């Protein structure tokens, strides 16, 4: 490897890592939090069989799973912008990622809720809890444990999907890499380097997920 290439990669280390820490990670965390709120609300509305909200939930999932994330991103950023609702690019990115992943996670959470034996809910109600107390104290904790590994996968795909917001001018890791490529014209090395950063972060998430799963397994219930 030439000295020039090494210098470029060394430069890239900070020029890519810094937007990673200041943009990619915060965006991932915020968007995933939004996705969790959306997922819980939608999954619980369906689990409770709330008449109007169940219909709305099915519609929401249909739309957000049936259209590309990139299209959603452009509608929220450029589309709403044209209508006068100009969101900062970062906010638009968080919204699009969170609303999109929320639709997928909602299905994960709903399936997990339905996998809890109905006797658990009935036992809660017979113990003098309301339906909602039984869900919150008994069913949901068990469901979230089931949902934990697939939700970890969703978090990882969300991390990778943040690269899409480079399309709406958010200066995250991938934009930093693109800028370096256009300056130095070393696409192979630089894109590989940014790939390594994504790999590093997703490995971290995987480790966190394993650790969390172990903690949950402390209860060892079946």
């Amino acid at each position, binding site marked *: 490897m030439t000295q020039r290439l090494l210098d470029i990669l060394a430069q890239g280390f900070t020029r890519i890592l810094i937007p990673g820490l200041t943009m990619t990670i915060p965006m991932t965390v915020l968007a995933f939090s939004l996705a969790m709120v959306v997922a819980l609300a939608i999954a619980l509305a369906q689990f409770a069989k709330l008449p109007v909200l169940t219909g709305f939930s099915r519609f929401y999932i249909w739309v957000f799973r049936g259209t590309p994330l990139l299209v959603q991103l452009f509608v929220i950023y450029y589309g709403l912008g044209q209508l006068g609702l100009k969101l900062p690019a970062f906010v638009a990115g968080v919204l699009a990622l969170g609303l999109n992943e929320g639709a997928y996670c909602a299905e994960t959470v709903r399936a997990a809720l339905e996998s809890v034996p109905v006797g658990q809910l*009935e*036992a809660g109600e017979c113990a003098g809890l309301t339906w909602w107390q039984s869900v919150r104290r008994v069913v949901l904790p068990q469901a979230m444990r089931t949902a934990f590994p697939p939700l970890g996968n969703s978090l990882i795909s969300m991390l990778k999907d943040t690269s899409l917001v480079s399309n709406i001018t958010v200066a995250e890791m991938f934009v930093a890499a693109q800028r370096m490529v256009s300056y130095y014209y070393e696409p192979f090395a630089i894109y590989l380097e940014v790939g390594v950063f994504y790999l590093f972060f997703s490995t971290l998430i995987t480790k966190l997920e394993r650790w969390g799963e172990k903690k949950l397994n402390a209860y060892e219930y079946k």
Partner: protein
Amino acid sequence: MLELQELKKSFGGQPILKGVDLSVEKGDVVAILGPSGAGKTTLLRCVNFLEPADSGHMTFDGVTYDLGHMSRRDILALRKKTGFVFQNYDLFRNKTALQNVTEGLITGRKMPRAQAEALGMEMLERVGLADKAGSYPSQLSGGQQQRVAIARAMAPQPQIIYFDEPTSALDPELTGEVLAVMRDLAQSGMTMLVVTHELSFAKNAANKVAFMEEGQVVETAAAHSFFAQPQTDRAKEFLRILNQT
């Protein structure tokens, strides 16, 4: 204390309970006997509103309710005065034995935690499981789980406890410990409505027997006279078959 009149329930157009009448006095231990499919489980589930009855009336503690039109609030209030023990125990799997007993007290009845835990420990002691307070259901045997379930049902000092075949999911060598707890509870004066296939429990611990067949209570009698002289042919037949095995 509890009186049912003309309780009816059908599933998909198929009548399962065809007008059940039953009366339970305070302190009664009523054994519900009957062949498989008679509607015993369905009856208990309707009585605690796990299934909505189609029609009928229930008088509980002096108040009469129209079972076809129950409000959520009445259902919750009634459940807080009753306990339920399931065939499959159905302990909260994410909670320890003690938490299983205290959950309904703390979350359902807003009892202060310290008081609930003291009461919970007392209940676990009564079923002989104080040393398992911190164990999760998966760490307990079936018999132990069912005893925790009984402690959970007893803890709020309900006016009646419903049991649906509490020993039939257990290995034979574990039924004894559960039946002993139930006998103890019966002797303490608790009102109990017990669906069971355990004739010995019905004979020795129950004071009344209600015999069900095809969605109706066809015979009600004092336990000793039911076993000595069953009145209906169906009850005679039922006892004859059971005594053969």
